[in-house]
């Protein structure tokens, strides 16, 4: 193949690399020639140097570890509880009716505002942060699990009942697998909220963590260090997204999840509604 053909076949990847390289180079040039003031702007090289210095001093590992533990523990508890309550709400109409106003309220609440209260109650350490991450993560999972289960195509349920399926069989063979795409969506949505919860609760008061690193560094005008924190968060968020996307592909082959050319942002259109629930046409 000629060079032009190779380019055409990989145009997208090639352009992405060019774009990133150009962007970083521009950023670096502006930093070193136009601004040249580490208080105001830090180029990629300064961020990299700062990263290495933090890494070699062992400071970085401590902060990453702190944030990661808060995030993963709170997130996992949130997923388990959210999924469980979502299932109960989908199965029991009364539970659903009683809980739904509270779910609506908490789902829309900026729960991170509770962070200072949690810190007062539970201290500056891991537990208060975990609690915030938990509250941030639990509602998207809960809500999507509930929605997924209660919108499974009735015809599928009828089909299993027609073959004499028990309630238990209907649950495990139809409702649960049918809800899985939305459950996965909930898991993905929770990642973003949970990360924000971890970082912001560290902003409110902490002794370690990437949020702590970012506030401490920017208050001391060590902008490069703050950027190291932000970049690491970006990498962490991106990686978690990719893991979930991979899991989704493995768990849900053939489900119409459209990634539409974006590396990390997966967007499912609301049209999906017609897949799980038949659109009824009104005829006159």
């Amino acid at each position, binding site marked *: 193949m000629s060079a032009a053909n190779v380019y055409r076949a990989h145009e997208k990847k090639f352009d992405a690399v060019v774009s990133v390289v150009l962007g970083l180079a521009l950023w670096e040039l502006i930093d070193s020639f136009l601004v040249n003031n580490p208080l105001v702007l830090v180029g990629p090289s300064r961020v990299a140097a700062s990263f290495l210095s933090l890494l070699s001093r062992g400071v970085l590992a401590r902060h990453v570890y702190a944030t990661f533990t808060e995030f993963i523990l709170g997130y996992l508890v949130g997923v388990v509880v959210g999924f469980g309550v979502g299932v109960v709400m989908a199965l029991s109409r009364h539970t659903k009716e009683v809980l739904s106003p509270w779910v609506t309220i908490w789902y829309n609440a900026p729960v991170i505002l509770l962070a200072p209260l949690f810190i007062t109650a539970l201290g500056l350490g891991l537990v208060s942060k975990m609690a915030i991450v938990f509250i941030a993560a639990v509602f*998207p999972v809960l809500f999507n699990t509930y929605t997924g289960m209660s919108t499974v195509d009735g015809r599928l349920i009828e089909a299993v009942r027609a073959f004499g399926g028990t309630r238990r069989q209907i649950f495990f063979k139809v409702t649960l697998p049918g809800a899985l795409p939305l459950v996965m969506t909930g898991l993905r949505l929770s990642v973003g909220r949970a990360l*924000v919860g971890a970082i912001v609760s560290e902003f409110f008061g902490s002794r370690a963590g990437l949020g702590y690193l970012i506030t401490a560094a*920017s208050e001391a005008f060590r*902008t490069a260090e703050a950027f190291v924190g932000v970049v690491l968060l970006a990498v962490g968020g991106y990686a978690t997204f990719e893991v979930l996307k991979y899991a989704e592909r493995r768990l849900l082959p053939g489900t119409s999840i459209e990634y539409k050319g974006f590396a990390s942002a997966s967007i499912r259109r609301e049209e999906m509604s017609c897949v799980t629930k038949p659109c009824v046409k009104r005829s006159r």
Partner: protein
Amino acid sequence: MKAAAEREPRFPAWLGSPRMIAACSVVVGIGLWQLGYEALARTRYFKAYAIHHFLSSPLQVVQAFGELYRSGELLRHSYFSFLEFAYGFLLAIAVGIPVGLLMATVKKINYYLDPWVSCLYATPLVALAPVIIVWFGLGILPNSLVVFLGAVFPILLNTYTGIKSVKQNLIEVVRAFGGSRLQLFFKVMIPDATPAIITGIRLAVGRAVISVVVAELFGAEAGLGFMVYFYSQRFLPGPVFVGIVVLVVFGIVSFLALEKVQGWLSPWYAHQLRRAAHGMEVEQP
């Protein structure tokens, strides 16, 4: 069967309606909170753990609300937060929709911007708040910038996806009648993508509210985030809950308002839309 259909219900129907149960649930929940607090206040743990430093009863929250309202503090803080929200959010709409449209229609622009957009979308951008405050100082504008960063990507991405998933057969119709590319864009792509764009705006509201609060944590002399932080540092939980309640109400009201706008702009869309039982939709990442 016949007997069941004709039997008089024992209660009037409205008593058992979901809306009634929801209202009761809220009232009972708040009542339990109040009773629980009173009970806790009588135990020795209350003093030992200084529970009043981080927990309020509903009555105390109402009282705090009254005080903050009467002193004019609440209105002032809400006003500042709202300004920051409005500036940042409008800017996010003004930037997000055109850039999303450009990315969806010009392949090269998509290829070049995609790595940046994907990466920034996955980053919890509120983490930039302290840095931005250091750069731009205190005030409404840097805080609006934080709001902008929080809100712009959901809008941009939903616009992009909305245009990208315009149904092929509708595009073909316009082509078959000899329509130009410009006509295709304005007569099919924009109307078809409108619901998706508004969904993006709805998603952005939640992120923007959080961004306002976080930005005010660092760089503000007013605003609801500032108010919450200020009182929490003085171990007064009442105003913290007031702040949360105000923001919850704002979040829900704007969500419902945008739903109305969506129904008004795209009435045809409503019938396609699956709704969850309590009037919210599944959030789209």
